[in-house]
């Protein structure tokens, strides 16, 4: 049993390592600190939002609003820092409070009105994107000196790679995410909810607070990803990060989390992100392939992992079946 639940994670890690070795065999420059640092920095916002998405998918839900929330956060920060003299840290706190509340509200609607997460978060997606447009349709630059301070925080490794603050924030988010998922009551409740709402209720899982907590967490992490994205581009732009929610979902699934919920690992998502980043890097290194190959390869990987999941579920249920037959009257 333990082996079959860990298998997707192992496959993901092996896929990443094999891909990295293959890529560096062809382009030795890929085995450099620059590429490693770039993988962390360039995917920081996606990684952070994918941690939240992992919790949502583990619980059997989906959150389509995160890409729009990232864009909204960026535009909100840019506008508030341009128009008021508020300190960025205060603005960060304010925007995080807003995105957490936004996520919690969606969670509450999903639970109390018994609505599909797909529809509720789709509404959230339009709402957040629309709000971003209302704030500003132009790309608003952020010129606060505190941003320069944050951007200058990096460790330059030998070989020229720059490990930036944002990449470290992503790593910290993953580590905290792993602890929360595997070592806390909330994490256990998320897994239980993903196993089936009915059984979770019978097990005494507080469904309301868990559901609200999950979407609040996802909203809050989308807000954090928005802050990281605003540091990444020094600007807020309402058209930014369109479709990032789908990249995050892809990373979670490639990372070995079951789309139906209940099984998966936060660590797997990390490698899912790295695999996607690696594909993009390879295609740029090659320089002749169309960049749409990124999508094709990710699509192929997704299919492969879904088939793997299906196969595993089939294998485990097939083994259990005699027991069920025996229990039936």
């Amino acid at each position, binding site marked *: 049993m333990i082996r079959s639940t860990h298998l997707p994670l192992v496959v993901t890690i092996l896929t990443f390592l094999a891909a990295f070795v293959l890529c560096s065999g062809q382009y030795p420059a890929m085995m450099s600190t620059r590429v490693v640092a770039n993988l962390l920095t*360039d995917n920081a916002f996606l990684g952070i939002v994918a941690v939240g998405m992992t919790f949502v998918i583990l619980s059997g839900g989906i959150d389509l609003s995160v890409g729009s929330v990232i864009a909204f956060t960026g535009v909100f920060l840019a506008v508030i820092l341009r128009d008021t003299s508020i300190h960025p840290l205060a603005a960060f706190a304010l925007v995080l409070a807003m995105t957490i509340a936004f996520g919690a509200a969606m969670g509450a609607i999903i639970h109390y009105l018994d609505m599909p997460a797909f529809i509720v978060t789709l509404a959230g997606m339009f709402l957040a994107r629309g709000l971003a447009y209302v704030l500003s349709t132009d790309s608003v630059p952020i010129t606060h000196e505190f941003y320069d301070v944050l951007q200058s925080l990096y460790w330059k490794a030998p070989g*020229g790679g720059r490990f930036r603050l944002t990449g470290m924030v992503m790593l910290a988010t993953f580590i905290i995410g792993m602890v929360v998922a595997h070592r806390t009551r909330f994490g256990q409740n998320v897994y239980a909810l993903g196993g089936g709402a009915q059984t979770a209720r019978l097990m005494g899982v507080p469904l309301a607070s868990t559901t609200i907590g999950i979407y609040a967490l996802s909203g809050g992490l989308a807000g954090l990803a928005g802050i990281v994205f605003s540091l*990444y*581009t020094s600007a807020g732009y309402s058209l930014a990060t369109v479709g990032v929610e789908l990249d995050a979902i892809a990373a979670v699934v490639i990372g070995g989390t079951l789309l139906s919920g209940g099984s998966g690992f936060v660590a797997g998502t990390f490698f899912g992100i790295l695999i996607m980043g690696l594909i993009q890097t390879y295609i740029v290194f090659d320089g002749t392939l169309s960049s749409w190959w990124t999508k094709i390869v990710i699509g192929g990987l997704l299919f492969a992992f879904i088939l793997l999941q299906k196969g595993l579920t089939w294998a485990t249920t097939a083994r259990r079946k005699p027991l069920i037959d025996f229990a039936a009257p």
Partner: protein
Amino acid sequence: MKLKSLLIASAMMLAPASVMAADLTIGFSQIGSESGWRAAETTVTKQEAEKRGIDLKFADAQQKQENQIKAIRSFIAQDVDAILLAPVVATGWDEVLEEAKDAEIPVLLLDRTVDASEDLYLTAVTSDLVHEGEVAGKWLVEEMAGKPCNVVELQGTTGSSPAIDRKKGFEQGIAGHDNLKIIRSQTGDFTRSQGKVVMESFLKAEGGANICALYAHNDDMAVGAIQAIKEAGLKPGQDIKIVSIDSVPDIHLAMAAGEANATIELTPNMAGPALDALEAYLSSGTTPPKWIQTESRLYTLKDDNQAVYEAKKGLGY
């Protein structure tokens, strides 16, 4: 360990050979292929690179700034000799351009500029976007010769510099001529399909008789709008005058059929001047001016549009 030393050894063996051949490796981060003009720019850039024996690494960003930043970082990691960048938005480039500067890789901007310190890039090759809009506005002023005219405007991608500047230029071009009035202005995102959809909504909201001219920030949106005008039972080019920018083959075909009235050329050959400047810089250290302007030529129905179409259609528009 053995593998690593092997790799280093092979890299050392290859390195002098590539220096002797003096061939350059250049990364080109392109926005995407949202319009025919963009595709032609990509084709011409590849042709120009091939002509000069340059190894061009091409990265299509699919309209996303984060993809462009990633591509530039990968180019730096590959240690290319120079980077061509057609930036999707003006803001947010300081950090990655500083990394390129740190690695002593010159960056040349194509077709659009950025809001960053001038020492972060070698030069920018662009057309004067405001001037293009102004040429379009002035053409309409002359065409109308004082008659009252309600103009609808199809804007480019919200917040992009061509959309901002072409709007500004057109307004400058028609300034002081109260007979011309912009009654509606909305974004068509530089695409044919959106141009059609937005034009349909203009026609519904205003009524075809109330619109006398259309100004589109690019030809693709104008081509989409022509379709919408036809479907509304009106004659494009006669009932509604159409002026747009870029000079793509399809608009010349429409002009040859009398369905559009004027276009201002935005040459797709931005890479030619950029690579000339780069080669001069690398061989003799000549620092180019910070801004290299390309020509903005006006085509009207007086030109042989069929011939222009034939000449341009092979470029990948």
